């Protein structure tokens, strides 16, 4: 019985909304769930809830599938119930300034500590000078001076009084002291002295010598006494320094009770302030008197400041960070430098956080392709995850490019879930070639592209479209708008039994449909608007396809759509231009003659054929041998070519047609040119499914309809592709009207029955075909060639 063409309902799977109760999508509840992504979302939930290390997540799926959005929703929902992250701060290490210390504080306390320390310094800038200007301090200083004065000056005065009683005068000289003789309250001149009796002179000399000895001893004591006085003054200064600083610092200590690291930091601050209390008098020097709060924040007091690396008091829940440029420094942080007079300097305050710091205690989302394309970023991330700490190592130090001393900040413990988003092939490459990847990213979330187009899924899918309309602030969809959009969704995945989960494509379709609806002043998107969106989008991208058609029309590209020809038939291929695909008919020809069994694939010989195409051609040889020459070697040389094809050819979707063309060339039997065919064939002649079936059919239909449909034209496709048919309305209408036909075949003989002008034929029990059939002619010709070849071989031997 001759093969019948497919019916219209097989060519287009119309959407039946049945009894779903709505007029427009505004009547429905939007569905914000991750429809059809149970596998992926379960994986995400699993990874998030796994408390152990190494359960980071790799998320894959096509671009535009909506995986970022879905993951973001899941994580944010989980993170909102998570505990708030700690504040992380770097502070000066007074013992080793190049190794800043790290402080961990509850959320919000980091900034408070920073502010408190500013306030402490500002307060001390006022308080310390005031303390030393106070009457109490002055009075204590005076007491020490008085004590000293009483100890020494009074003694010198007493010595002076005794000297006066002994008729001597204690006097100052330019460089010290001297004692001179007095008589009658006046100093003796040398003449007066010489007039004195010798005993008296001697007495005066002895008295003066004795006083000189005592005076010498007194003068010797002065430095010691001054040193003692100085020490007392120092002790007094230290006491008042404590008086000024301790209460302020104690108030801080009580506020941060329960944080031993902070208390230890306060200890070092305290000690440093005691040792450098002079710094707090600095504002009294110079002509300018800047405000105290500015001085407190100046470089002079930077060592007391707190660098709050991560601290967001207002954030609730765990952090969710998406790093758009995941370079090494953006991930792990960096140390900045300031240049001054040709030298670079840095300190703890110039440490800047990376994404890992900000995400610590939460979640970090990174694009895998970007991560792998930035130098050292991947290695840096792995190191942090492996060691469970964030260590800021400048790259130049890490790789030994610079040997000058830089900062070595204390590492920060890391607790983060990393979500890498990337393509599937990157995932498998990493699995294959990076042994660390498997141990660090144990969970794989694979987002689906499609959903079963089943009745039970339709309400949720419509709910998804409702949600998208609302998110994009579009007009609602009417019932037929929904139906048409669903049908188009199946077309997106080339499968009438499935729906696309590609949010990007669905949103674009809805936006463009809404545009046309608004152009028509409608209040809802109708089916016609969706259709218009589809056709206008196709039209925008079809210039190249139309140019190809023109070339066919002009005979530049030779394609027959009527008549017959031996060793020639119309194949169908799909050309992808960006995100637009279209079918292109092309001619396949074959030649055959006696030979040694060599099958020449001209595409392969010219290196224009890909491996899959070459495989398909080799399968043809196997089929021919298996069917027609089981008991004798193949004695033919044949060649196959895609005529006027000057680009690369790959895939095996034309192998069935190639087989038909080759058999036609062998048998010398013509093939009908009003058909185009597509399908892959195996060694046993079974026709296998191919891709792009809709575009292929539409491509040949456009050619035929441009040349005027004759009613006998059509396309032969594999039966396995029936479920993929979602053809254009004009194609379906032409088929309904009998102007165009689509046939589905599952065996090569079925294809031959349509293409051949003769009966195909069945083998008898010996595997022989009737000579008047197509198969018989092929078989006969091969036998004849075998005979010729045999005779030639014998003739040569003779």
């Amino acid at each position, binding site marked *: 019985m001759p093969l019948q063409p497919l019916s219209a309902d097989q060519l287009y799977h119309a959407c039946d909304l049945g009894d779903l109760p709505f007029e427009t999508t505004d009547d429905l509840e939007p569905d914000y769930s991750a429809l059809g992504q149970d596998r992926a979302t379960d994986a995400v939930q699993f990874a998030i809830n796994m408390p152990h290390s190494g359960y980071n997540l790799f998320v894959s799926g096509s671009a535009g599938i909506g995986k970022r959005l879905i993951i973001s929703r899941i994580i944010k929902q989980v993170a909102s119930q998570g505990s708030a992250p700690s504040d992380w701060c770097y502070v000066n290490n007074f013992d080793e300034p190049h190794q800043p210390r790290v402080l961990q504080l509850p959320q919000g306390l980091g900034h408070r500590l920073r502010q408190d320390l500013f306030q402490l310094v500002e307060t001390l800038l006022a308080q310390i*000078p005031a303390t*030393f*200007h106070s009457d109490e*301090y*002055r*009075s204590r*200083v*005076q007491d020490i*001076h*008085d004590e*000293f*004065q009483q100890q*020494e*000056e009074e003694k*010198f005065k007493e010595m002076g009084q005794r000297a006066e009683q002994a008729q001597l*005068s204690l*006097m*100052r*000289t*330019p*460089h*010290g*002291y*001297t*004692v*001179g*003789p007095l008589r009658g309250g006046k*100093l*003796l*001149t*040398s003449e007066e*002295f010489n007039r004195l009796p010798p005993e008296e002179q001697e007495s005066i*000399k002895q008295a*003066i*010598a004795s006083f*000189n000895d005592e*005076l*010498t001893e007194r*003068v*010797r004591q*002065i430095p010691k006494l*001054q040193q003692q*006085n*100085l020490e007392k*003054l120092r002790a*007094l*200064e230290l006491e008042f320094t404590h008086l000024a600083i301790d209460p302020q610092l104690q108030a801080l200590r009580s506020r941060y009770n329960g944080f031993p690291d902070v208390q230890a930091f306060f200890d070092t601050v305290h000690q440093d302030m005691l040792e450098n209390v*002079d710094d707090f*008098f600095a504002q*009294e020097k110079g002509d300018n008197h800047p405000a105290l709060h500015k001085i407190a924040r100046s470089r002079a007091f930077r060592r007391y400041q707190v660098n709050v690396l991560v601290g967001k008091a207002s954030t609730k829940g765990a952090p969710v960070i998406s790093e758009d440029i995941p370079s090494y420094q953006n991930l792990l942080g960096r140390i900045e430098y300031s240049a001054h007079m040709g030298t670079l300097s840095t300190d703890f305050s110039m440490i800047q956080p990376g994404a890992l710091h900000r995400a610590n205690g939460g979640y970090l989302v990174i694009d895998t392709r970007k991560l792998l394309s930035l130098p050292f970023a991947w290695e840096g991330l792995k190191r942090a995850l492996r060691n469970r700490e964030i260590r800021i190592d400048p790259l130049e130090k890490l790789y030994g490019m610079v040997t000058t001393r830089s900062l070595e900040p204390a590492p920060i413990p890391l607790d983060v879930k990393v979500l890498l988003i990337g393509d599937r092939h990157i995932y498998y490459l990493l699995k294959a070639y990076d042994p660390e990847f498997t141990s660090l990213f144990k969970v794989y979330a694979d987002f689906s592209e499609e959903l079963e187009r089943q009745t039970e899924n339709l309400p949720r899918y419509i709910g998804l479209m409702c949600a998208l309309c609302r998110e994009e602030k579009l007009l609602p969809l009417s019932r037929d708008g929904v139906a048409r959009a669903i049908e188009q969704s199946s077309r997106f995945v080339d499968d009438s039994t499935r729906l696309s989960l590609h949010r990007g494509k669905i949103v674009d379709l809805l936006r463009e449909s809404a545009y046309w609806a608004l152009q028509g002043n409608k209040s809802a998107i109708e089916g016609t608007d969706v259709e218009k969106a589809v056709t206008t989008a196709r039209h925008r991208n079809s210039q190249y396809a139309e140019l190809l058609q023109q070339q066919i029309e002009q005979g530049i590209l030779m394609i027959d759509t009527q008549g017959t020809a031996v060793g020639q038939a119309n194949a169908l291929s799909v050309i992808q231009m960006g995100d637009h695909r279209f079918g292109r008919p092309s001619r396949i020809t074959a030649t055959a003659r006696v030979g040694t069994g060599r099958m020449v694939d001209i595409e392969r010989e010219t290196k224009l054929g890909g491996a899959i195409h070459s495989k398909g051609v080799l399968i043809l040889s196997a089929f021919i041998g298996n069917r027609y020459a089981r008991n004798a070697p193949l004695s033919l040389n044949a060649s196959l070519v895609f005529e006027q094809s000057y680009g690369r050819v790959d895939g095996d979707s034309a192998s069935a047609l190639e087989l038909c063309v080759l058999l036609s060339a062998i048998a010398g039997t013509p093939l009908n040119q009003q058909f185009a065919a597509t399908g892959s064939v195996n060694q046993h002649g079974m026709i296998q499914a191919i891709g792009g079936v809709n575009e292929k059919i539409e491509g040949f239909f456009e050619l035929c309809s441009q040349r005027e449909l004759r009613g006998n034209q059509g396309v032969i496709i594999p039966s396995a592709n029936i479920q993929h048919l979602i053809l254009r309305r004009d194609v379906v209408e032409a088929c309904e009207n009998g102007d165009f036909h689509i046939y589905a075949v599952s065996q090569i003989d079925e294809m031959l029955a349509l293409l051949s002008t003769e009966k195909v034929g069945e083998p008898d029990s010996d595997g022989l075909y009737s000579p008047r059939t197509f198969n018989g002619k092929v078989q006969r010709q091969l036998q004849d060639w075998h005979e010729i070849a045999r005779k030639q071989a014998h003739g040569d031997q003779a």
Partner: protein
Amino acid sequence: MSRLVLTLQPGDIDPLKLERCVRLAAELGFELEALIIEDQDLLTIAGLPFCQEIIRHSARCRQLSTHRLENTTRQQLQDLQAQLRRLTRQSPVPWDLRIYRGRWFEGLMDGWSQTDLIVLARGQSDFHPRPSHRVDTAIAVLSAPDGGSYRALQLAARLARIQKQPLLVLALPGSPYQSVQDLPSGLGRLRLESVPDDNPQSIRRWLPAMADTLILPLTAIWPDGLPAPHALLDIPGIQTIVVR
């Protein structure tokens, strides 16, 4: 022209104080006279062969001689001339150098009528340790119930502004300024201490902890207008300036 007289003793030249005086004279538009007082009594006993000098810094003992004293004075004179030349290049001031042999207040009598300001560089005791550098020492000025106090106050305020020190007003009983509000405006950072009596000894005790300079109206310490020793003129650690 009005004159600022800076009295110096041999071995007693503080370059900072000298610079202060030069700047003050330049500010006021006065001429500067540096008056070195050679103690006659020293010269007297220097003639005695058995008199020794005990050196302050080393406690070493050496012969006190007229020749050495005169050498010291001559050297000091040369140093002083060089310093004054250098300082007056920066702050142009007419200056003069004089040596007087005798007591310091007698040396002031020469040109007394032109002398408006006397800076006594005496009173720096070896036994008085330097006050803590952290103590914000003030310029102190005595305010007595007489007309000269206003000029002294003006000079003190000017000096405090130049040296960026606070001003301390010592209000004696009867002074027109008994509280800060009584003082003229524009005096800068200031403080007022009421002195309960005009006994100089009480001021001597606590003033060194608060100030390093004391400005005295001439009429407050020399009522008859002639220079003479006074307890407020040699407070240890205080440089005294007398204002006519």
